[in-house]
Each structure stands twice: as C-alpha cells, then as structure tokens.
C-alpha cells in the first residue's frame, strides 16, 4: 500500500468513524462508508491540509471513492 493510500485511509477512519477494514480502495464514501455530501466536503478539506494540495470544487465533486481521492492526490501533490 502506498504512503498516500495509508494516510487517506487513516483520515477516512477518523472522520467517518468506520472500521479500518471497510475502507478499501474501491469503497464509495456515500454508498459504502455512510458519508453524506457535507462529510465529503470535510474529508476533502482534511486531504488538502494533510497533503498540501488544493482540491477545487469541480475536482472534489468527482471524488466518490477512496481510490479517486488517492489518485487525485498522487497526481496533484507538490
């Protein structure tokens, strides 16, 4: 598992209060992890803080699974 994936999963567990083994890469935040749209806004903010990336609203809207987040961060972090 990549360093980014590890750190993303840790944030998801902390923010959504879900079991770590449920946070698989293809897990959907809303369908599988019980998040609502505001939870995703909060997660995106946490990713921005953790990785020092800017995730604009139009990109954030396309992040619906754990792997979407990992991929965006890996492609855009400095």
């Amino acid at each position, binding site marked *: 598992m990549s360093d980014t994936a590890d750190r993303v999963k840790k944030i998801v567990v902390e923010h959504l209060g879900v079991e770590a083994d449920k946070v698989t890469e293809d897990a959907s935040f809303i369908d599988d992890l*019980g998040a609502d749209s505001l939870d995703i806004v909060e997660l995106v903010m946490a990713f921005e803080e953790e990785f020092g990336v800017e995730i604009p609203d139009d990109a954030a809207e396309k992040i619906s699974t754990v792997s979407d987040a990992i991929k965006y961060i890996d492609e855009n972090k400095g």
Partner: protein
Amino acid sequence: MRRVVVTGLGLVTPLGADVETVWANLLAGKSGAGPITRFDASNQKCQIACEVKPADHPYGFDASRRVDHKIQRQVDPFIVYGIDAAGQALEDAGLVDMDDDLKTRTGCSIGSGIGGLPGIESESIVLHEKGPGRVSPHFVHGRLINLISGQVSIKYGLMGPNHAVVTACSTGAHSIGDAARMIKDGDADVMLAGGAESTINPLGVAGFAQARALNCSYNDRPEQASRPYDKDRDGFVMGEGAGVVVLEEYEHAKARGAKIYAEVVGYGLSGDAYHVTAPHPEGKGAELAMRMALRKAGLEPGDIDYVNAHGTSTMADTIELGAVKRVLGDDLSGASMSSTKSAIGHLLGGAGAVEAIFCILAIRDQIVPPTLNLDNPDEGTEGVDLVPHVAKKRQVRAVLNNSFGFGGTNASLIMKAV
C-alpha cells in the same frame, strides 16, 4: 383534561453521567467543582468550574455510549450531552423501540441557553488564521441550539413537535413547561424535554466573569465557591451538562404500564421588565411566575414541601427568597428549600431541567438534597429551612422549581406525586 406525567429521566452532570450516580453523589454532599482542566485558565479571573468529568473518572461521561463517533466530531459538547441524556430518558421510560404511530406523536423540546460557544470560538480562530475555506461544513448545524432536538428526532425517528427554547438560565424549565402544554393541547402524547449547556471555554468564562456574574475569589478553594445564601457568596460557579425527561400523557403512560415518577401540575412564566442581568430588586417577576404555577396547579402554599431554588450563589439569592416568602409565607409554610447549584454549579440552559429531575427524585425517595457551604446564612434567612450541608429525609408531596434568566425571564414548575 389531559394530564402530564414524567416517565423517564436522563442526566449528564459534573457529579455523574447517569441519574442514580448523580443523585447518590448529590445526597452525599459531594461537590463537582474543581480547577478548570478543559483549557489553560491561568490568565482568567475565574479559574474554577464544575466540569463534566472525563470517561476514565469514577463518575465520568463516556460520549461513545450513545453518540456516534462522527456526530461527536461534528457538534459542540452541549449537543453530545443532550443526545446522551435524551437516550437515557427514553431507555428509562422503556420507549427506545416505538411503533411508527407513536413516533408521529412523540416530540422533542430540548433547548440551550447559549448553544455552541466553544465551536464558535474555535472556528472563528480557524477563519482568522486559515481563511474561510477551512471552516468546517458542519460549523453551523453543529452549534445551533435546536440541534439537540434535531439530532434526537433523527436518531430515534420522532416526528412530533420539534421545539427548542432559548431563555438563558430558564431554558430547562421553560422547555419542560412548554412540552407539557403541547401534550395537554394534544399536539403530542410523549415529549422529550429538557436543556443542555457547555460553555466552559475561554470566551464563555471570560464573558461571564466580565459581566461580574462568576465567583472569582475562591480559585484556591473551588469546592467552597458555590455557597448560596451564605454571607460570603460572590458569584456563581459555571457548570455544564444536560437534563432530559420523558413527559407523557397520563392515560397513555398508565395503559402501557409505565413507571410514573410524578405529575407536572403547574407552570408559571413571567418577565421582570427591569434589567438585562440583574433581577428586579423586589423579585416581582419571580413572584408572578410562582403564583401562576401555584394557581395552575390548584395547590395551596402549604402543599409545597420542597423548593429547588434558582439560588445561584449571587446577591440575587435573597431577592428570590423574599419572593418565595411572599408566595409561601415567612416560614415557607414548613417547606424546605435548597440550591443544588452549591454542588453542581450553574448549568445555565441545562439548570432548570437538571433541577426538575432532582425535584422528581426528592418525591420518589422522600429526601431533599442539601445546600452546600452554607456556613453563615445571610440576613433574611432566619426561620427558613435551607437544608444546610446535609440531605434531609422528610415528606415530599409537591415541589416547586424556580429558574430565572438574563433578560429578566422567569419560569416556575410544580410537580407532585401521582
């Protein structure tokens, strides 16, 4: 006429996070006061408070028992306390699993005096230091006063009236009184009613200290700081927590064989029309509220056996006592009167509900809780049983619970044995 009874109780206080623990500690004369641990208070005039204790304390509060991890992160502590106390009350009443029909006839009236001040303080620092893009998307609905009622209704599927009183330190009493009326009027058969507060944060403590409301002269003796009716009283000690009761229409409670603690028989409300923080010097508003509650209850002064006073440990204590004397008689017609704020501090918007629960337990156990630290009773207290230092076994048929708030808002509740 529809009658309203109490069938469930829930408490989160500085003396414990369940009803029986709090009550046992209160009757044992324990104090919930101590140095502020929630933040570094070394630069504050007031450095003491009655904090709800952490989960690892012998009578601490474990938020994870009834509140989801995600919600704990999103909302201010007053909402967490309120959700937990409401859950306790529903469990106590045997109403956790309701059918869909009853859910539509069950509502919430759980308020707060101030709301999410700690979160407002911390997010305004985030805004200032990191900019608007870092403010939590849960900021607003995690701080709003009506979000205890909102969260509880969502958690348990309660589709009846969803209400939240905001009347400063009268909130808890008004919440119960208003909810009782909703049941009387047929708007609901069951109501969760009460109040919660948690403002032991730098801005909250500083604000009340600057308003000259807090005790700032007992920082080295926190357990002695809250001393209602004592000559050396010098302001209130801030508390935090929540109290929630299940109110239920009497026939409904009887039909399902519910345990009935007491009946809510009287509710009186008034305004002082005098000053934003100081009570009317003659206690006229307090007197009006008590008289209204007695009239509604159809009781005589001699029927009241216990008064749980507002008694915040400020100069206003003797003003309230004067008003109680005018309503009940110079010797209170034999009633005992105590201020449990001497033990748990002032829970502000939670106070009226927590103290109503103490009144209900006084009826159940025929014992009245003490006024701690009453070493040198002030002038004007002669001939009145203020229950100094130790709890007292006595007959308790009907009780009067007073709550007064900033803005000059007054509420009195009368409850009696069924």
